[in-house]
């Protein structure tokens, strides 16, 4: 009876550890992304940055501000995409392209997005 209980607790413990391990990259990144949102939204409305065709932020014109913040955002995005790719047993590029399509779809009017053929358009 005690062995059965011990085995059950062990299984529950392992499941909990695996669940937490699976969401480890998610939580911290999510908070950082949310903190960056006001600046990114501002840059998007100003037409300085847009969503490129690989699911990352990119400078649309020659004006470049907050480069470090954009680089950090893209690095965090890449980590998330890689995690999803591993989780879904697919390649990073598949995840990147899917996210890019989502971003094109949901982009706010007036913001810039890069189409799959590489051209930048203002929505």
């Amino acid at each position, binding site marked *: 009876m005690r062995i059965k209980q011990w085995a059950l607790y062990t299984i529950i413990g392992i499941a909990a550890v695996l669940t937490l391990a699976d969401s480890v990259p998610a939580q911290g990144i999510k908070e950082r992304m*949310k903190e960056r949102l006001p600046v990114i939204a501002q840059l998007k409305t100003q037409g300085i940055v847009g969503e490129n065709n690989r699911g990352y932020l990119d400078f649309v014109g020659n004006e470049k501000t907050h480069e470090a913040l954009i680089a950090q955002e893209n690095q965090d995005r890449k980590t998330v995409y890689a995690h*999803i790719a591993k989780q879904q047993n*697919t390649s990073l590029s598949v*995840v990147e392209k*899917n996210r890019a399509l989502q971003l094109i779809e949901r982009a706010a009017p007036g913001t810039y997005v890069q189409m799959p053929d590489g051209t930048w358009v203002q929505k």
Partner: protein
Amino acid sequence: MMTLIPRFILLVWMVMMFSGCQTRHEVDVKPVEVKPIHITIDVNIKVQKALDDFFSDIDAQEDEIMEELEEKKNED
């Protein structure tokens, strides 16, 4: 022996006649290529769901910020 000859001739004639009726059909069976389209679609659906699971609240928050910026822009 005399009866065998006409029978033999008849047999040869019949063989020749029926061999003329023989038809041959050659059908080229090309290997069927099954493209895994459904697998690709399935992967994309799963990937999009995983992306939605992670980004849905971030996207919603961004939409709110964008709306606020749009309102400010209109006020100015």
